[in-house]
C-alpha cells in the first residue's frame, strides 16, 4: 500500500479497512444477506402460500367479518384448509433443514440427512405399529394424535438406541454412530416391510401414504404443540454455529479451539434428533429437505454454520411451502404427496446450482 503525502495515516487505514471488507465476503455480511433473504422468503411463503391451490379464493372475501366458515367459503379455505397446512410446511421444512445441517457437521459427512441415524425408521415402525395395532386406551386418550405420538416415541427409542450403541466414555465416535445408524435403518426397515406384508389393503395404503409424507394432518392444535416442542431446539441449534464449525473439522480440532466437545456433540445430536422426530411425527418422513436446503445454502453463502443454521431454518420452511404449493396445484384437482414433490423439485434445482457453480472461483 502506498501512502501518498496528502492522506493521513488514519485515512489510509480506513481505506485499507474498506478494501479488506470488500475483498473478504465476511460471514457477518453473508449472515445479513442470506438470513434476511431467507426470512423474507419464509414470510412471503406464509402469506402467499394459502392463496395458492386448486380453488381460487377471493382475498377480499377472506377477511370479511364475522368469520363464519359455513357462510364464507373463501375464509374457510384460507383459514381451515390452507393456512395450517402452510404453517406446518414452514415448521417441518425448517426443522428438517436445520436438523440436516446439524447432522452434516456432527457426522462430518456432507451426505448426512436427518434420517441417516435411523431416527425416521424408528418413527415409521412405531407409526405403523400404531396403525396396525391401535391400543384402545391410547386411541381414546390421544385421538387423532395416536399415530404422531407413537411416531415420536419411536424416534426417541431409535435415538436412544443409536446413542447408546455409539456412546463410550461420554464420546460419540462418528464412524460408530454412522454404522449404528445404518444398521438400525436396515433392522427397522425389515420390520416395516414385515408389517406391510401382513397388513390388509386399507392399512397398506395408509402406510404407503404415510411414507410419502403428508401435511394433511395440520391443525392449529398440532401447530401449537409442534411450535412449543420444537422452539427450544431451534434456538439451541441455531445458536451453536461456532461449535458446529469446529466440530465439522473434527473432535480434536474442536477441543483444541475451546469447544467442550462431549456436551456440544450430545446437545447437537439430541436437538437435531428431537426436531427430526417431531417433524416425522407431524408430517411423515418427508425426504430431501434435510439435505438439499443446507447444501443449496452452502453454495450460496459458504459453510460457516453461524450463517448456515439460521438460514436453513428459514429457507427450509420456505422451500417446503413452495413444494406443498406445487403439490396442490401441479396436477389439480389431484394433490401429490409432499415427499414426492420435494425430490422432484429439489433434485433438479440442486443440480442446476451445482452446475452453475462449477469452475467458478471459490467463495470470497
Amino acid at each position, binding site marked *: 500500500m502506498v501512502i501518498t503525502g496528502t492522506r493521513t495515516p488514519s485515512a489510509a487505514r480506513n481505506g485499507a479497512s474498506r478494501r479488506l471488507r470488500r475483498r473478504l465476503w465476511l460471514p457477518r455480511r453473508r*449472515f445479513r444477506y442470506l438470513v434476511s433473504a431467507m426470512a423474507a422468503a419464509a414470510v412471503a411463503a406464509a402469506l402467499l402460500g394459502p392463496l395458492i391451490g386448486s380453488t381460487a379464493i377471493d382475498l377480499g372475501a377472506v377477511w370479511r367479518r364475522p368469520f363464519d366458515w359455513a357462510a364464507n367459503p373463501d375464509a374457510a379455505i384460507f383459514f381451515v384448509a390452507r393456512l395450517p397446512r402452510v404453517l406446518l410446511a414452514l415448521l417441518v421444512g425448517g426443522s428438517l433443514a436445520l436438523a440436516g445441517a446439524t447432522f452434516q457437521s456432527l457426522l462430518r459427512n456432507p451426505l448426512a440427512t436427518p434420517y441417516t441415524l435411523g431416527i425416521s425408521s424408528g418413527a415409521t415402525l412405531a407409526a405403523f405399529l400404531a396403525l396396525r395395532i391401535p391400543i384402545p386406551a391410547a386411541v381414546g386418550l390421544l385421538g387423532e394424535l395416536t399415530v404422531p405420538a407413537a411416531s415420536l416415541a419411536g424416534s426417541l427409542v431409535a435415538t436412544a438406541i443409536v446413542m447408546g450403541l455409539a456412546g463410550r466414555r461420554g464420546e460419540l465416535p462418528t464412524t460408530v454412530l454412522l454404522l449404528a445408524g445404518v444398521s438400525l435403518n436396515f433392522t427397522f426397515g425389515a420390520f416395516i416391510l414385515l408389517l406391510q406384508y401382513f397388513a390388509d389393503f386399507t392399512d397398506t395404503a395408509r402406510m404407503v401414504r404415510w411414507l410419502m409424507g403428508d401435511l394433511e394432518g395440520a391443525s392449529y392444535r398440532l401447530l401449537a404443540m409442534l411450535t412449543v416442542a420444537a422452539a427450544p431446539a431451534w434456538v439451541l441449534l441455531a445458536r451453536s454455529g461456532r461449535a458446529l464449525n*469446529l466440530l465439522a473439522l473434527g473432535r480434536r480440532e474442536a477441543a483444541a*479451539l475451546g469447544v467442550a*466437545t462431549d456436551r456440544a456433540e450430545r446437545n447437537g445430536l439430541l436437538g437435531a434428533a428431537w426436531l427430526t422426530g417431531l417433524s416425522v411425527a407431524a408430517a411423515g418422513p418427508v425426504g430431501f429437505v434435510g439435505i438439499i436446503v443446507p447444501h443449496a445454502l452452502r453454495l450460496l453463502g459458504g*459453510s460457516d454454520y453461524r450463517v448456515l443454521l439460521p438460514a436453513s431454518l428459514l429457507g427450509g420452511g420456505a422451500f417446503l411451502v413452495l413444494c406443498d404449493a406445487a403439490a396442490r396445484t401441479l396436477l389439480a384437482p389431484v394433490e401429490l404427496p409432499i415427499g414426492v414433490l420435494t425430490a422432484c423439485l429439489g433434485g433438479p434445482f440442486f443440480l442446476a446450482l451445482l452446475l452453475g457453480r462449477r469452475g467458478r472461483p*471459490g467463495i470470497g
Partner: protein
Amino acid sequence: MPAPLLEADQLEFGYDAPLLRDVHVAADGGECCALLGANGAGKTTLLRLLAGVEKPNSGHVAIDGDNLADVDAAHRARLVGYLPQASPRATGLAVYEVVLMGLYPLMPARGWESLAEWRRVVAALRRVGGRQLLRREFDRISGGEQRRVMLARAIVAEPPVLLLDEPLASLDPGFALELQSTLAELLAGGAAIVMATHNLELARRLADEVVLLRAGAVVERGAPADVMSPATLDFTYGTSAFGSGRA
C-alpha cells in the same frame, strides 16, 4: 523458582496398552522443547495431552499455574495454540475462515468478529508467508499451503503456549528456513513452544531441550548438544544408521 509456563508431570496414557509412561515435559516462556522419537513413539499423543484434547489416565498438565483438568475448554484454548498433525479435509471454507477459528477462543460467546479480528487474520497469514492465500478455498490449496494456514491459525491468537506437531512437514525447504526464524521470533516474544519433529536439524537449532521418546517412555532429555549423540539417537530410533556402531 516459580513453576515453568507449561509443566506436565508423571503423564500416563493409553487405551488398552499404555502409550505413554511417566512422561515429564516442561517449557518456560521463550523456551522450546523438541520431542523426538520414531513413528509411534508417542509424540503426537503427548502433544494432545498437553493441548488438553485427550485426558491423561494419570498425571497432570499445568499451564500458567492452571491445571488443565480443572479449567473449561474455552479457557484452555486461550492458553494453547495447537497445530495438529493432519489438516482438516472437505471443510468448504475459505482460508480466512479457517484462520479466524484460531480467534474463536478470544471472541465473546455471541456476536461477530470485527475488522480488528480480520486484520489479525491477515497479519497471521502474512507471518507464515501465506498472505496471497487469504481468499482461496482451503480444500483446493496444496498440502504445504494448508500447513501454513493451519500454522497461521495456531498463532493468530498469540497464545502463551504453542504445541506444534511436525511444523515443517510438507513445507518447501525455503519456507522451512523462513519458518525457523518465525518460530525464533515467537520464542523471543515470550512464547513457550513444544514441538514434535523428525527434523533433527530443527531440533538442534531451535530447541533448548530435547526429549527423546521411545515406546512411550522418555529415553533421555537435555540440551540438544548433550543428548543428541549417535548412540542415543540410534537407541531412540531403533537403528544403527546414526553410526553408534551397534544395532
